[in-house]
């Protein structure tokens, strides 16, 4: 800091301060508002004078008197597990394959990335065509008739898996593109050196390339966690996140928006989602800071 002129300090201060103010105003104040509202029974109508504080009652109700909540927590964790163990590794694997400059790789790249850019309404429609019990492609291909048809979207024991396939289909393309960009930045000299030393393809990747990609790996991990926690859009399109497709994001919206307008109760669910997110953030920052100290 001593090397900086006064002007530099002002510029730096502005460059950090202005975005920080924005984040404060746009992210942290509403978050604080949400947490405060979660202790009220406000229904979104009227001003501050009509807000009645009810203490922890919303939380009590969520735990004891709101069956969808447990299912939602379970589904969010399932989402995280599937993304972390299946979708993310698959996206990385695709990136590694496409990094080899095989012929027509532009085609594979576009095909894999397409789901990410498709509008949600279109994605929802595409999967409805696959999964529809009576007219869907999957049941038709399986040749199921009448009562033995599988109810992909309506059976609460399997519909979350059906949606997870659709969600992974989008997530794989997203991770692939991120990872591909990272791979392109790896110095080719490293790989050549490894190959000269007689390392196999796999060995080269795991011992040389993967460690040099550490920053990207962290980004991919964080994105996987974030995407799982805010899972919402696909289940909302199917059935508003009900009947086995409960996820926290959908419960928040179902209570907050529309004519239901249970602002207090919805905020309490949102606050619990914030708490869960904070746990992940603390773990992540802890890891990062420990790395730095090393």
């Amino acid at each position, binding site marked *: 800091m001593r090397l900086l002129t006064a002007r530099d300090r002002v510029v730096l201060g502005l460059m950090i301060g202005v975005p920080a103010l924005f984040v404060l105003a746009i992210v942290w104040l509403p978050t604080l508002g949400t947490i405060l509202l979660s202790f009220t029974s406000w229904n979104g109508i009227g001003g501050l004078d009509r807000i009645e504080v009810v203490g922890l009652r919303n939380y009590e109700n969520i735990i004891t008197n709101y069956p969808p909540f447990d299912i939602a927590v379970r589904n969010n964790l399932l989402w995280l597990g599937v993304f972390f163990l299946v979708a993310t590794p698959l996206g990385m694997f695709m990136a590694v394959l496409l990094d080899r400059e095989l012929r027509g790789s532009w085609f594979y790249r576009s095909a894999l990335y397409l789901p990410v850019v498709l509008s949600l309404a279109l994605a929802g429609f595409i999967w409805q065509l696959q999964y529809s*019990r009576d007219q869907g492609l999957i049941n038709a291909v399986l040749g199921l008739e009448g009562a033995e*048809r599988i109810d992909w979207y309506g059976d609460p024991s399997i519909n979350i898996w059906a949606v997870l396939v659709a969600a992974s289909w989008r997530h794989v393309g997203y991770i692939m593109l991120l990872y591909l960009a990272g791979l392109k930045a790896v110095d080719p000299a490293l790989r050549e050196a490894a190959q000269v030393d007689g390392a196999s393809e796999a060995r080269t990747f795991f011992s040389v390339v993967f460690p040099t990609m550490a920053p990207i790996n962290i980004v991919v991990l964080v994105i996987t966690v974030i995407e799982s926690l805010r899972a919402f859009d696909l289940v909302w399109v199917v059935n508003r996140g009900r*009947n086995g497709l409960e996820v926290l994001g959908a419960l928040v919206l179902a209570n907050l928006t*529309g004519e239901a307008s249970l602002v207090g109760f919805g905020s309490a669910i949102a606050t619990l989602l914030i708490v869960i997110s904070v746990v992940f953030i603390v773990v992540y920052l802890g890891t990062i800071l420990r790395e730095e100290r090393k």
Partner: protein
Amino acid sequence: MAQRLASPSLSGFARRSSGLVVPRRAVLAGAGAAGAMGVLAACGGDEESSGSASGGAAASGSTSLGSNRGDEVPRAAEDEMIAAFEEESGITVETNVVDNESFQESINSYLQGNPQDVFTWFAGFRARFFDDQGFIGDISDVWEDIGSGFTDAFREASSNGDRQIFVPLYNYPWAVFYRKSVFEENGWAIPETLDDFVALCEEIQGAGLTPVALGDQDGWPAMGTFDILNMRINGYDYHIDLMAGNQDWDSGEVRAVFEQWAELLPYHQADPNGRTWQDAAASLVQGESAMYVLGMFVGEQFPEEEREDLDFFTFPEIDPEIGSGALDAPIDGYMMTANPENEEAAKEFLRFLGSAQAGEIFVASSPNSIAAHSDADTSGYNSLQQKAVDLISNADGIAQFLDRDTRPDFASTIVIPTLQNFLNDPSDIDTVLADLQAGKERLFVDQG
């Protein structure tokens, strides 16, 4: 939502104006003047309600309308109504169109923000709820002019206590829909009682068809079945009382409804929670299912040339003491906001919307509903609309549909998931009743 959801529109919000847009200040000044004049000019409205608006001298300038009719066909019909009104009154109407679903989703913030003078809404509890919050203008004086054109049932549905707050435009019945040709080919008769109905279902199954179509992926269609069973088993008054939160959901009466429903479920299409109402309608169109309990909008799913084959009967009697005179027949119409910019013009517009002419214009484009006004010309109605008029005018109790008769938060966050659980596992009625009751206590008691 007890109606077809609008297709997602790309813009979501189209601002249109018909004619001249008056700057806000001018409107306010005009409103003040018109208000003063309105006090002086007594509204001479003792005319026969032939459908023409009355007292046009008092109002001038412009008013505004917030409309959820974003779909092409109703949009055109509403524009035609507005054009007729503008020509007749010299008042311009500025219209804000939002697609149906977004409009309903954002109604709370809409009414608290800067709403138009007049807006599209639904009758019943859903209208009274907003009036109790102080968002709605009293239009009892408009009803003095238009009231003779509506039956008592419509007046009741448009009132909150002794205030009138709503102008009905059209409604449509919920009933059991079927294809005439399918019933004729098989020689099936219209069932009068529950026993007839069950026997008919057995016969239909024997013929290799599914007796009753059912699709509840969106959550609301099954409410129609609950409503009608409750009205047939416990009567109309009990149903309305239950909806208003004055009865317990874990009572023997409600249990009887679910037990009856569980007995009838095997005659319905399997796996309803994974089927949209449109897919269920398709099975009726294709002749795979014989009957379908739905609103008259099921006609939209039929190709033009097959519409005449669609027919309906009211759900059969279960208890002879109660009969089969009650039904769901949701009413759509208009309300005025609490602080309109030009109250006189807004009321003039509502007088027109409550005329036979307005109803005729709207229903002409929409063959799946009927005009609410008693004097609306029905000569252009198809046979289905004629039947709907008979059914509704002879009804001894008209409910609005579950999600319009009870608290919206209760309907969407409690009733829908619970009914879906029931459809997944009809054997566990205890849990269903307990969930409904716990939800009712949380919302009706805690939320006040």
